[in-house]
């Protein structure tokens, strides 16, 4: 995986529209096999057709985003939307773009939504999605 380094941003510093530094990663056969073992997926469709499970791309894109993000301890992943736009091939190189699409702060309810778009090395959109977290109020207040 090719890493693009970026300082971690904390929740309080993020506003709607904030864009994370794009990150690059590659999914080779070994990484794909490790992912399929982890999720206990024994469908042969991936190996037979030399294609990558889109959830592996989503997992790595989110992992890259998480490297640049510091959420309060106790943040909960509450919703996940994903759209698989194109089949990706083993060995493809991906670039993930993430940005803050919503930040709700209403009384004791704090929610953060981050959009992710992943392209392959030909700049074709492969996957898009939105991830939402609910944040523990006490933890966010302590930092203010």
């Amino acid at each position, binding site marked *: 995986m090719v890493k693009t380094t970026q300082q971690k941003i904390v929740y309080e510093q993020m506003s709607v529209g904030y864009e994370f530094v794009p990150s690059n990663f590659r999914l080779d056969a070994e*990484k794909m096999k*490790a*992912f399929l*073992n*982890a*999720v*206990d*997926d024994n*469908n042969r*469709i991936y190996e037979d*057709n030399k*294609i990558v*499970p*889109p*959830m*592996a791309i*989503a*997992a*790595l894109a*989110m*992992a890259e985003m*998480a*490297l640049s993000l510091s959420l309060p301890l*106790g943040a*909960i*992943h*509450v*919703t*996940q*939307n*994903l*759209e*698989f*736009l*194109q*089949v990706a091939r083993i060995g493809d190189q991906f670039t993930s773009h993430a940005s803050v699409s919503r930040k709700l702060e209403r009384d004791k309810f704090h929610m953060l939504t981050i959009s992710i778009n992943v392209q392959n090395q030909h700049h074709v959109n492969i996957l898009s999605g939105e991830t939402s977290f609910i944040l523990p109020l006490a933890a966010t207040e302590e930092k203010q």
Partner: protein
Amino acid sequence: MTLKLEELTVDTKLQELKRQVTQEHINLYATVSGDFNPIHIDQEFARKTPLRGTVAHGMLVLGYISEFMTNSFGQNWLRGGSLNARFKVPARPGDLITISGKINAVQKENEFISILCDVFCQNQQNESVIICETKVKVNADEDCR
């Protein structure tokens, strides 16, 4: 295993999938995803939190749902599927997760059919782990593969 064209009708049940959550799988997922949050992998830390033990990554369990959809819709799911998932209760090591679902709408769009499904992900106590709506586009004149 994948659905045939004549099966793409409202109320068709999708083939159930069962998966046992283990700490070993959670640890593997942490390694492959790079998400080493101690709530997933550190028993001692997790015991002291309100969750009282380690829990699986939500995206790991979402992987079961994607496999479930792939089993029914094949490459149609991989190249044009979408999902909206809500995480309800965490999956824990030892949980037996059952994924079930059915087609709830079929919409014809020229040479394609959009299939909308309700997918349920429950633990052995019938608690909802994830509630999910999925959509997949298939060719109007051929079986899923």
